């Protein structure tokens, strides 16, 4: 699905956010990315969802080199990628139904999109998507009246409506109540398994990543430190990943304790 060949991203202020990353993700895979803040995970995701352009290196989506795409082809490519951000995915003033149906904007004509604002088109689709994420009753509520966790679910519903081949989730649960985080992560993972959509997720919580994903990539300083299955990841490796970022370890540990009740086992290195 994704092929990255020595991709680099240097920002205009000179900072190197992504430093020669080479990796391949096959269709239908579920991959979790972990690493300290500022390691370049978010930048990587923005490169993957075609918001940013790599400074150098090659990036292929579905076998097609991305840098040569025309504007039209670029839009088509973006339709195949559904992104969920940590926050602010949605427009607060709009009703939930409009935010969800916005997933259709890549395929609706402008006229239809406008008409839908006046009178929602294909409402059944929105209803079904909201049902899948567990909040069907919020269809006509104003989006900013929902809690953070509910808003993330609306964002997921929008991705469902968009029906992409790939789901990119950039720290989808970092701003959400920890008790809800587990349900959202498993929701996305189950979705990927059932529909065969590729899932890439950035996670702050090591415990969540290790417990639910068959492939973990550790990013540090814009580079891939390791790319392994969870049972192959040693405590030393994790320590090396988060070295110098003590706060993250403590947070991750707290999370671990919280999740201990729900049966997730893997303890963190002390």
């Amino acid at each position: 699905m994704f092929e990255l060949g020595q991709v680099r991203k240097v920002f205009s202020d000179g900072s190197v956010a992504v430093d020669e990353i080479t990796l391949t993700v096959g269709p239908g895979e579920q991959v979790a990315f972990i690493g300290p803040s500022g390691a370049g995970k978010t930048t990587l995701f923005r490169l993957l969802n075609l918001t940013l352009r790599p400074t150098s290196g090659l990036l292929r989506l579905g076998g097609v080199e991305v840098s040569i795409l025309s504007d039209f082809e670029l839009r088509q490519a973006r339709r195949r990628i559904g992104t969920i951000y940590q926050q602010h995915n949605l427009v607060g003033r709009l009703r939930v139904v409009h935010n969800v149906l916005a997933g259709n904007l890549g395929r609706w004509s402008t006229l239809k999109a406008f008409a839908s604002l006046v009178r929602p088109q294909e409402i059944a689709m929105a209803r079904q998507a909201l049902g899948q994420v567990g909040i069907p009753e919020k269809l006509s509520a104003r989006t900013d009246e929902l809690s953070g966790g509910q808003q993330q679910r609306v964002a997921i519903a929008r991705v469902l409506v968009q029906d992409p081949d790939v789901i990119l989730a950039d720290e989808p649960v970092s701003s959400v109540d920890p008790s809800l985080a587990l349900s959202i992560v498993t929701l996305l993972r189950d979705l990927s398994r059932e529909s065969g959509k590729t899932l890439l997720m950035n996670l702050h919580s090591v415990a969540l990543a290790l417990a639910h994903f068959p492939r973990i990539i550790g990013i540090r300083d814009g580079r891939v430190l390791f790319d392994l299955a969870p049972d192959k990841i040693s405590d030393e490796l994790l320590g090396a990943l988060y070295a110098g970022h003590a706060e993250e370890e403590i947070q991750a540990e707290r999370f671990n304790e919280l999740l201990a009740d729900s049966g997730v086992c893997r303890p963190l290195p002390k």
Partner: protein
Amino acid sequence: MDAVRRSPWPWLILTGFVLLIVWSYRGTQVDLGMLLGSEGRSQIATYVTKLFPPDLSMTMLREAGVGAVETFAISFLGSLLAVAIAFPLSVLTTRTLLYRGILHERHHLSPLSKGIRVGIYGTAKALLNLFRTIPEIVWALIFVFLVGLGPFPGVLALGFHTGGVLGKLFGEVLEDVNQRPIEALGSTGAGRLSILLYGILPQALPQFLSYSLYRWEVNIRAAAVLGFVGAGGLGQRIHVAISLFLENQLLTLILAVYVMVTLVDWLSSALRRRLI
């Protein structure tokens, strides 16, 4: 519950406005065809060619310069006068000082005292309304009538009109002020004047300054125009240029207006950024 709820109001309001627009369009004889058609364009083109090039002779530049300085002075003093008028009147329209609110919870005013205070409030409010409603240009006509031609009536006109506008805005600020410090001061036995100085003003002054500086931007435009009825500044000279069909001079004066307005706009926002 399944259907998306919608209220009829937005549609009613929208329809109302569409009707208003259609009615107005027919009434104003707006002939966009004329404007955009060949006849309209040639009329405008002819006029534009008459305007250019601007008259940049020394005498004209001096006239424009003097006019510009006069206009600046009119707007500056007019705004100051406005603040001087607005400030006391706005205090008198602050009901929380006069007869309402926290300060008057405990001791009850006699009907006579309350009556007088309501009267004061009413009079001040009416005065501010009067000042606000009379357009600056009408004020200018009045003052020209009273004291003769020149920039001074312009200052007075701006002062009174803007005084009414600022007075209303100041009054709103004073009434919306956070009541807790007032309550605290009141409980120490401080008199009303002290409460005003120590409790209300520190909260209100930044907002006062912001409004006043913003109004200065409005006033420089007004000052440029008041001269048309004899109140000095660039407006007076513009009137002359127009009456004598001296279009090149007119353009010079308009450029001067543009420069002054841009200058004051910039000063106003720079000061607002720095001080607030």
